[in-house]
């Protein structure tokens, strides 16, 4: 139920400004429905008039007064009704197509805008695939529902109501006959849909397991081949595949049978109406013409009668998906934004120092990661953070440019809490080189000037030179205009890292944070990257998160973190003399003669 409420709130938010369009649509659809349900009566009347004409004509006495006048008028009205139907459907479809396209467009951009404002916490807690699915399948489901279901629902409901009104106006007995089979049809539909629900769930579970198995096995194919496990793998597969065979069969049958059943019910209903209608015609007090007309009109209604029920049941799945989709997108919309102080202070470089003061931090309440960490970094100094995986090194980086905020304690720049600075000013002063050098689609030049899109070419080249990547770029056929995209992997991890370093150099940040590249590159490439990093750090205040100690031997200060606490602090020599954790780490990593 809350799903429905959330979805309702979501659609209301995005659709309310189209109220006029919806109003027009509803009016037009009412008109079209009126035309459609009234039209058959004119077909009936035309037949009735023809019958009369024929009767008058057959009798020589009445033949002279016979005329087509009434018949032709009826046909003109009949024609006008269909024109009215077609034009009102056309205009309302046009309006709805516009609303659907533009409202989904607004939703898409809205989702993206929201994403840009959201806290990093959300992205860390959700997989990329899961968030991306909100752009693809969820928005798609919403679009499909708006595009098809919306007009169908309007139409079906209007048609059903209109049909009931007209039928009862025409002939109460026949209207009741036409409706007689409805309870049976509804019971069948409800039963089949319930069956289909469970059968399809079971089918999806089994298919999910099968797909999981296939994925695991085929991705591990090297392992299967090197161990000669192909037969085993097929055996396992067959088990899952056979399970899918039986469960998907019932899923397919139950979900596929509703439509033919309803079509069959429609046939049966028409037969019943014909049967009763003709019985009524022959045993009632109606004239032949009127009786014929009655049968014709109600046959028409009987054929139309099941259409709304059929479209609504076939839309059921689509609507279900759209509700889920709206819930999932709405969930993002309700995430907290990043906190940017209302009158944030400006920040122009570092004058004295950056201090981390007794910082406690936890990603999840109750599971503290940093237990009172204090580090002081003077202007122009390089401080290295080392420690085993999970010690909290990366967490410190996350706090420095406020991807996350501290639980208690504070981080200050020249004595001012970083939470008091304008968020964007703070980040403009803090440059980060990440472990995984994410580049963006565009040219190399675009990527290097990413932080300052207006930067002139000579600044781009200068940054590339400092990052030791200029020569490589010049060796490419299109040089700085070479396109970077995720499809073409023409750059190695090391080259991408160098480009990301150039990108950071160009923005000339006051405080630099380097999260070192690790095992993706070999030690020789690493030495190259190291040289580029040394260039960047020249004369800058910097924090280095080190994975290989080789790179930080020259640091002014090395801070050893373990389990969220600083256990050792000092320069390389001091720490080696201490002969503690750092010394052991160092001996483990290095080769000794």
């Amino acid at each position: 139920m809350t799903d429905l409420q959330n979805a309702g709130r979501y659609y209301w938010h995005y659709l309310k400004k189209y109220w006029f369009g919806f109003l027009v649509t509803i009016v037009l659809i009412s008109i079209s429905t009126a035309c459609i349900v009234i039209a058959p009566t004119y077909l009936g009347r035309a037949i009735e008039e023809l019958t009369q004409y024929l009767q008058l004509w057959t009798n020589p006495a009445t033949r002279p007064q016979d005329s087509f006048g009434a018949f032709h008028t009826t046909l003109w009205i009949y024609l006008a009704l269909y024109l009215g139907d077609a034009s009102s459907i056309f205009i309302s479809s046009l309006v709805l197509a516009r609303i659907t396209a533009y409202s989904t467009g607004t939703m898409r951009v809205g989702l993206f805008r929201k994403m840009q404002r959201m806290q990093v916490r959300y992205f860390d807690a959700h997989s990329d695939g899961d968030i991306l699915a909100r752009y693809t399948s969820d928005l798609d489901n919403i679009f499909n529902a708006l595009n098809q279901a919306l007009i169908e629902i309007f139409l079906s409901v209007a048609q059903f109501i209109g049909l009931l009104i007209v039928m009862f106006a025409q002939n109460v007995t026949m209207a009741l006959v036409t409706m007689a089979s409805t309870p049976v049809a509804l019971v069948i539909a409800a039963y089949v849909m319930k069956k289909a629900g469970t059968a399809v769930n079971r089918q999806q579970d089994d298919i999910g397991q099968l797909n999981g198995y296939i994925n695991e096995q085929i991705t591990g194919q090297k392992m299967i081949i090197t161990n000669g496990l192909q037969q085993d793998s097929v055996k396992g597969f067959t088990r899952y595949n056979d399970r899918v065979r039986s469960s998907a069969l019932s899923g397919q049958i139950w979900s596929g049978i509703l439509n033919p059943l309803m079509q069959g019910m429609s046939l049966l209903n028409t037969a019943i109406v014909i049967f009763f209608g003709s019985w009524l015609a022959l045993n009632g007090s109606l004239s032949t013409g009127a009786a014929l007309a009655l049968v014709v009109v109600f046959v028409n209604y009987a054929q139309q009668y099941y259409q709304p029920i059929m479209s609504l049941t076939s839309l059921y799945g689509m609507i279900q998906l759209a509700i889920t989709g709206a819930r999932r997108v709405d969930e993002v919309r309700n995430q907290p934004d990043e906190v940017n102080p209302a009158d944030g202070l400006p920040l122009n470089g570092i004058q004295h120092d950056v201090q981390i003061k007794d910082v406690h931090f936890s990603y999840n309440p109750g599971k503290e990661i940093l237990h009172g960490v204090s580090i002081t970094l003077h202007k122009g100094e390089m401080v290295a953070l080392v420690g085993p995986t999970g010690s909290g090194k990366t967490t410190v980086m996350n706090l420095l440019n406020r991807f996350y905020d501290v639980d208690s304690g504070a981080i200050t720049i020249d004595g001012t809490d970083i939470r008091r600075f304008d968020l964007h000013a703070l980040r403009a002063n803090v440059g980060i080189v990440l472990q995984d050098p994410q580049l963006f689609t565009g040219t190399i030049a675009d990527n290097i000037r990413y932080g300052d899109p207006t930067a002139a070419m000579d600044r781009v080249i200068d940054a590339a030179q400092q990052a030791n990547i200029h020569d490589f770029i010049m060796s490419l056929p299109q040089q700085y205009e070479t396109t970077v995209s995720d499809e073409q992997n023409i750059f190695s991890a090391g080259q991408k890292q160098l480009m990301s370093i150039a990108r950071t150099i160009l923005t000339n940040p006051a405080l630099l944070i380097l999260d070192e590249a690790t095992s993706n590159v070999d030690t020789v490439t690493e030495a190259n990257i190291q040289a580029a990093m040394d260039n960047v750090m020249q004369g800058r205040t910097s924090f280095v998160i080190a994975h290989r100690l080789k790179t930080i031997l020259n640091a002014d200060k090395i801070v050893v973190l373990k389990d969220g606490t600083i256990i050792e602090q000092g320069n390389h020599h001091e720490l080696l003399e201490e002969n503690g954790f750092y010394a052991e780490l160092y001996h483990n990593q290095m080769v000794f003669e």
Partner: protein
Amino acid sequence: MKTLLPYIRRYQKDAWLATLAVVALVFATLWQPRLLQTVMDAILRNDKTTVWQEGIMLIALALLGIAAGIVNTVYSARVALGVATDLRADLYRKVQTFAYADVEKFSASNLVVRMTNDINQVQQIVMAGFQQVSRIPLLFAGAFILAMMTMPEQWWVLLMMMAIIVIVSLFSFQRMGKYFAQTQQDIENVNTIARENLMGIRVVKSFVQEPNEIKKFSRASDRLTDVTAKIGYLFAILMPVFFLTANLAIVLSVYLVGQSITAHPAYLAAIVSFTSYLMQILFAVINGGFMMTFASRAIISLGRIGAVMNTTPSMTYVPANDDIQVNGDIAFEHVTFTYPGDEKPTLQDVSFSIHSGDMLGIVGATGSGKTTLALLIARLFDPDSGVVKIGGIDVRQLPEKTLRDTIAYVLQRSALFSGTIAGNLKQVQPDATLPQMKWAANVAQAAEFIDRLPQTYNAPVEERSSNFSGGQKQRLTITRGVIADPKILILDDATSALDARSEKLVQEALDRELKKTTTIVIAEKIASILRADKILVLDHGRIVGSGTHHELVRNNAVYQEIYQTQKAREEGLA
């Protein structure tokens, strides 16, 4: 279609029943107006007996329609599921005969898509095929013929209606095709930007580029929105035009009936059935159009499945032969190897040999060919030229089973399969006993944490072994590697997540417990291969140095460069 037909033939009986049911269903649908005409005629003549008879017929016909609908669904589903599961099974078996190069050629994720999504597409189209596709032409032809039989004079009304519908469809489907292609492109652009921003959210935020990214995304999204709206407008025209055309035809034919009513009084009763047939023709054309777009997707899927089925495995093995026994000697003789699709060879003129029970270390920069060399030993690829020998025999002359039993390959980023630890070990050594498992785990330094698990060797392993840490994963895969006491053990960067102490313990245990096993260690860390009997230094696919650590440190430039970056530098510090 060539891919699909043999599978449908396996379910011939079901397929025929489904088709028969379709015929019955179409008959019921089309015959009803016919009976209605007779009834109307009877009302005109005040003929009660006929009305009764035909009334009963009508109900019987409707019941036939319902029954036919059910039978059709059930048997269509049987064919669809049968075809899909069989096709998937054959596809899977086929892939299991692939050489590694074949898997690489398609890429693993691509093969998975073919076995899941593509098969699903095929299943849907087969289902729809037996439910709808056969029905549409039948309905169309049936309705057309019956309409002509009902009022032969009005043939031109029918033709005119169809001509208008076909012309309008052709015109709009052509435009729509263009727009749909445009949509695909726009969707891709939008998704690319979204994905990049997701993966690089920290970059975007730290460079304060949110406004620019929003601008970029809005531009791409607006283009998509505009095309979507255009498609919507086209559809908004299309449907009313179709129905209006059919309704105009109806009005016209009623008018014509009126004009000639004195010549053909019987047509009075035929109007309703004639209009019903007109509507059936219209529905058949519309559904046919939808089916066509639907089918085109399935045909692409079928093509992709066919491509896998028609691939001949690029590697064959000599028949199994228990007489062939090999030891752990390995020799490369002038081996050159190029990856399919590459221009430059990855390995060039590589020659070396190593004796049973020795340890071989391989070092070199990323991309120097270390892993490729190991892959050739395990015959995941065959060399372009030169020979790889195990126990003095060309690996191409060894039966698959012999080869696999001889070599255990522990991969760089391999994981156990989901199941249990014991299950994974038994895959390699089906009759492994608990003491054997314990022995292997001890060698791999895995025993200490396995023993602490509540279910020890029966502990569950999740997908991608995600319930174990990096170091534990590596120790588990080494356990799996040694359980069968192989003659050759390849450790491809298999200890990178282990600390120096554990790594040393593993190596000592290998020395002690697997004395006869030839061990090949590929590593980034020189420390991992210090103890090797022989170290190969690879650079751009060539062996540029070979010898022990002490020899190489003295006389090999490439080795020295690598060593320099890892050597402890006590002297010369600031």
